[in-house]
């Protein structure tokens, strides 16, 4: 059943609010990764606020769905989603990257709601694979999601896991590539051309789904189609825009990991309808 129009509107508004809060937090500490947090916004928000079976009251439920944010530098968008689900106090974002804070620059499983440390790129798909294997042995119906960056697929270990997950027939595993086509030093074409990502995963035996990664309805259908594929793992190649939602950040490598000056924050807030 498709999402109601009202629910889609709610989720889109949450995304707008999350973008505002993430940019404010990154501005406040003058450190962090705005570009990749904005591109992955709809993907994380749909999963956490709609699709995943998780609850802060039952954080250790063995049958909870799991998510590994393999592109750990998008941590602020993960934290904002965890706040919304009640895993973290409402005012947590102000602690981002500060001493003695729960909110590390890259995710740590010591933070409530975070399943696996991440940051060194490439390892999250393997870890998610291990979770999927373990849940299957436990007879659990829970699903596992691994969220990868496109630049991250430069790492060889991603392709080790791409080779192994189909061998084990892990239909409870869905990978998502946040395909924003920009990495730290430039575009993916300039730094390390990815070629036909869909064909690459397909050649390894994955069920490949492509969609607009900022369209809630399209993402919802993609996750539904991944769930109904029972032979092995699925990967959603989500077409996204780095820095999505803020005109001067969109598609710009410069905003991968750059502190946001006051004037730029003000412009961004104006565009997103937030207060500077």
């Amino acid at each position, binding site marked *: 059943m498709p999402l109601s129009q009202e629910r889609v509107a709610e989720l889109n508004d949450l995304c707008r609010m999350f973008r505002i809060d993430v940019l404010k937090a990154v501005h406040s500490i003058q450190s962090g990764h705005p570009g990749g947090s904005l591109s992955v916004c709809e993907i994380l928000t749909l999963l956490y606020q709609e699709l995943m079976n998780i609850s802060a009251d039952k954080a250790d439920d*063995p049958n909870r769905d*799991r998510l*590994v944010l393999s592109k750990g530098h998008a941590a602020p968008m993960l934290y904002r989603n965890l706040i919304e689900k009640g895993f973290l106090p409402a005012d947590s974002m102000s602690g981002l990257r500060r001493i003695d804070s729960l909110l590390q620059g890259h995710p*740590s*499983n*010591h933070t409530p709601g975070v*399943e*696996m*440390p*991440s*940051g*060194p790129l*490439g*390892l*999250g798909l*393997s*870890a*998610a*694979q*291990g*979770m*999927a*294997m*373990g*849940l299957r*042995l*436990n007879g*659990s119906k829970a699903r596992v999601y691994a969220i990868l960056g496109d630049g991250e697929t430069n790492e*060889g*270990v991603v392709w*080790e*896991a791409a*080779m*192994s997950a189909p061998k*084990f027939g892990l239909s409870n595993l869905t990978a998502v590539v946040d395909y924003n086509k920009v990495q730290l030093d430039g575009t993916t074409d300039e730094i390390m051309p990815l070629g036909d990502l869909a064909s690459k995963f397909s050649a390894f035996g994955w069920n490949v789904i492509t969609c607009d990664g900022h369209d809630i309805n399209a993402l919802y259908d993609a996750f539904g189609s991944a769930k109904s594929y029972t032979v092995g793992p699925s990967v959603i190649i989500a077409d996204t825009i780095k820095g999505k939602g803020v005109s001067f950040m969109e598609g710009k490598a410069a905003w991968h990991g750059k502190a946001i000056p006051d004037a730029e924050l003000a412009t961004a807030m104006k565009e997103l309808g937030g207060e500077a």
Partner: protein
Amino acid sequence: MSKAIRDVYGSVLAELAENNNDIVVLDADLSGSTKSGIFGKAFPERFFNMGIAESNMVATAAGLSTTGKIPFVNTFTVFLTTLGLISTRAQICYGNLNVKLAGAYCGMSDAFDGATHHATEDIAVMRSLPNMTVIVPSDAASTRWATKYAVEKVGPMYLRLSRDVYPDLYPENTAFECGKGAIVREGKDLTVIACGLLVHKAIEAAEVMEEKGVSVRVVDMYSIKPIDKELILRCAEETGAIVTAEEHNIFGGLGGAVAEVLAYGGAGVPTEFVGIQDTFTESAPYKDLLKKYGVDANGVLAGIEKVLARKK
């Protein structure tokens, strides 16, 4: 009696799994060598051959551990502690996950395969990771205990295992304890603190010295992290000189760990380090390697002579 350490590990693991459904085993296309294949035959549904992909294997184990499983990760020591290191550090140790890393061919025990297949820095690497426990068994009984302990103790653990056959040192029912060392031979003139194969070489050396009228104490430091500080300082005080002996680079391994304790404790006794002298090794029969790289009984004797000369 003497047994190959890898055989003992492989069969104990399969034995323990009969009563523990949470034990799962991963290997990187070396299960015939590491002996994890014994488990694989008995419990195929809980055995994952990951192919020649060590980084993927270790990170997969990290994920498995979060579902209540107790993953044992197997491959040659050198690949486990290099290719597997990023996940070991960033996921398993940082996350304090319940993963057991079993390095199968420690030191030069994969003798003929040469320097690329010898593991001579793994203790240094593993003991510098927060949350990691480091155990080096020295015979069948201690291997049996270490494997059992790895199942019982929650948290990251590294087992340094050998391809080689070690003589029996302990009775079957010996009570080992993590964080403790064992005096396996009494002596009063100096102490050799050793681990793994070198415990046996140290005992041989002590027997030679006894004929020369020198009384050598030998300690099996099977628990390298945490380490038995009290025993090290007691040996320094009671015997006045220390020799460390290990099949590992002289930097950062057991010798380094003992030196840290001696320095911190202000023991200030003459200390010598027997081990591989910060060099790469080569292909040869194991016995010839141990001799050339100074990690046999003669190597320990040389260390003893040096420390005695300094003690006088």
